[in-house]
């Protein structure tokens, strides 16, 4: 169905050059036609993000607006910049709002009609406007030295007695650094502002000039708790560039560990939700089970967070059949008590009162933000790259993608619980499918320059990674679109009109990582 729509759209724009590659359609569009194309694609395609790349002919910067759909090819709209401004599409696709602000800050691309550009990734008190560190392949980046930093967030509420409640960048417990400004006249949050990028480490800049092997080490440190999915997404991009098929055993084992990571990450979010509602007994019990999973990963892969496991073209080690079966058994014994705890919670009124109809994100709001992951699925969007664009061995496996309708805190809680059940179901299917172990090939090389896309459904949502490499196999440019970048955008929307005491609970139900957003 999506392909028919695409044909129909392309018929209307016959003058545009269309390049068809395997699983990938590129449309070269003049900047002025971009909003029209975007609004035609928007109903059926999900907007992934904006990827900057070098035009192979002129070496000038061009932007690629990436869209994806269920079972359809990926669609990229190529827009040349030529140092002119590009019309904003954030009024059509609100999801593009943050992406455009990011492009403006890092590449100095101007978006005509965008209401709020500047002071986003690079805080104005540290870097002058127009620094554009990613525009050139240069490491000389000017930094401001004198000027006190500005910790205030914007104000838009003008009611009498209104004030801003500042939160962060350092706040409770072991929370990550991010800043919120909650505008209020008393009890209710009237408007919420979010100021991210305190932790900006310039990962995408750092990736330039790296070998695939080191690039994966950097990718997994974008977000340590979903490291495996991040490096898997990037490894797939490298493998496409190298044209090297991945052995079937590796593909299955990658699915195996990706699902174990999903279970562990969901368990951590669930513990956070329980802690935020003040139920410390179940929170501690779930946290102890998370520790069991960390130990399981540590004992069998050499790293508790699965760092260093994905290598270009393979995995850093292999396991015997008995080891794999033992892991599945152990998972069963860890998940059995967790299921009992989570089931008991659905009968706990004091718990339900805090989650039900709290932090509601409507289907409409979730769609305009193009949300991904469990947050999107809890608001009724059935979007999952494992099903939409099966990668690795997901096409050999049967599983369901649970979806909730309500979009409130309780829906997000149930979503996580049900996804854990499905992940265990996936893990159980893998041992009988595994072909006999092969001696792993370690020689992996990219010999041809090019651009490739890699993607994975991380526990928090779609990680989409676009790598341009040169003929020596080094990364020229890399863009990582993380679930954090997409989902944090909708968070201020969900806390509006709820009370202050709900704020930490809503934050916990989103289960978002700041490191994933800041990169």
């Amino acid at each position, binding site marked *: 169905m999506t392909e028919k729509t695409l044909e129909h759209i392309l018929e209307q724009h016959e003058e545009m050059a269309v390049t068809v590659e395997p699983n990938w359609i590129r449309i070269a569009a003049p900047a002025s036609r971009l909003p029209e194309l975007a609004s035609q694609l928007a109903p059926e395609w999900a907007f992934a993000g904006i990827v900057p790349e070098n035009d192979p002919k002129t070496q000038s910067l061009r932007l690629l607006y990436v869209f994806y759909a269920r079972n359809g090819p990926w669609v990229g709209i190529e827009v040349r910049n030529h140092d002119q401004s590009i019309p904003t599409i954030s009024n059509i696709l609100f999801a593009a709002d943050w992406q455009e602000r990011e492009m403006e800050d890092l590449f100095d691309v101007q978006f005509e009609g965008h209401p709020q550009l500047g002071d986003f990734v690079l805080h104005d008190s*540290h870097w002058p406007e127009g620094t554009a*560190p990613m525009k050139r392949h240069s*490491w000389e*980046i000017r*930094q401001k030295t004198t000027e006190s930093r500005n910790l205030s967030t914007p104000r838009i509420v003008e009611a009498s007695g209104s004030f801003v409640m500042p939160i962060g*960048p*350092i706040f*409770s*417990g*072991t*929370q*990550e*650094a991010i800043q919120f400004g909650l505008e209020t006249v008393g009890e209710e949050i009237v408007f919420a502002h979010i100021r991210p990028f*305190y*932790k*900006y*480490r*310039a*990962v995408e*800049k*750092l990736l330039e000039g790296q070998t695939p*092997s*080191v690039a994966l*080490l950097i990718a997994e*440190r*974008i*977000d*340590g*708790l979903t*490291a495996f999915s991040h490096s898997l997404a990037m490894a797939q991009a490298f493998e496409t560039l190298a044209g090297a098929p991945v052995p079937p055993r590796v593909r299955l084992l990658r699915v195996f560990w990706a699902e174990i990571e999903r279970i562990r990450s969901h368990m951590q979010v669930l513990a956070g939700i329980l802690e935020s509602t003040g*139920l410390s*007994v*179940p929170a*501690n*019990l779930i*946290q*102890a089970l*998370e*520790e069991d999973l*960390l*130990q*399981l990963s*540590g*004992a*069998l892969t*050499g*790293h*508790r*967070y699965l*760092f*260093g496991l994905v*290598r270009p073209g393979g995995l*850093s*080690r292999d396991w015997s059949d008995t080891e794999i079966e033992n892991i599945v058994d152990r998972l069963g014994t860890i998940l059995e*008590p967790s299921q009992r705890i989570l089931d008991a919670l659905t009968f*706990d009124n004091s718990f339900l009162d805090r989650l039900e109809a709290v932090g509601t994100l409507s289907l409409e709001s979730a769609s305009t933000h193009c949300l991904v992951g469990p947050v999107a699925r809890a608001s009724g969007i059935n979007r999952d790259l494992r099903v939409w664009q099966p990668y690795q061995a997901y096409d050999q496996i049967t599983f369901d993608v649970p979806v909730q309708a309500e979009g409130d805190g309780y829906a997000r809680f149930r979503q996580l619980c049900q996804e854990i059940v499905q992940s265990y179901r996936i893990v159980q299917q893998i041992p009988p499918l595994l072909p006999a172990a092969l001696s792993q090939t*370690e020689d992996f090389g990219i010999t041809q320059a090019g651009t490739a896309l890699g993607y994975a459904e991380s526990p928090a949502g779609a990680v989409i990674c676009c790598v341009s490499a040169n003929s020596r196999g080094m990364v020229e440019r890399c863009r990582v679109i993380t679930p954090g970048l997409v989902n944090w955008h909708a968070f201020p929307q969900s806390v509006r009109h709820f009370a202050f005491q709900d704020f930490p609970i809503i934050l916990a139900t989103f289960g978002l990582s*700041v*490191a994933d957003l*800041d990169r």
Partner: protein
Amino acid sequence: MLWFRKGLDQPVRTLTPKTSSTLHGLSPGRPAPTPSRDAAPEDVCPTHALKEHDGVMDVDYTQCIQCRLCRQQSLKNKMNWEEGFHWAQMTSTSLPDAFHHSVHVRVVDAGDCGACLNELHQLASPVYSLHRLGIAFTPAPREADVLVVTGPVTVSMKETLEEAFQSMPTPKRVMAVGTCALSGGIFSSSFAVAGPVDRVIPVDIAIPGCPPPPLALLDGFRLIMGARPENPLDGRVRK
């Protein structure tokens, strides 16, 4: 009330020195100094942690990110690997006796990927139960004895970190956690990173690792408290 009873029904999960010695996966281990002729070459290390020195391939733990590239299958010679978790290093010359009984800890994230923070968070779980050792997390730097800093200090977090340090009452200690906090690790060359923690505030205890496992963190806290038992899970040890 209901949950309290359910909690009591559960088996005791807290690790003891005895049970921790039988478990695997508590610590990822790290490369150990290896005689040069059997060691991996210096250039396999992406963070330049391997340095040859008098016939021994030494490991600079402030740089090592435990990526295990120095043990990859294609290498003829591999680095030795050591288990264990006594990783905490005192970096100030001496620590005055001040925190024998308990310490209050404030954690500051200065650009962490989330793994170090989660290992710190894991300390509060019943498995490690740091409270029984007299250690507690506190929300405000003004009530803290120890400032734990994770992550390579980013440019945007530098002043916030300085302020947090200055608002702490004396005597105070700073514990830098994780390879990023000690040297910048894999992020050291980034333009958005202001440098390791000791370039911003004085560091007393350094705990290498990417991330350091909870037992290594406990080892560091026990070192601050003046008692460093064979196993950091040992009950209160008087000096």
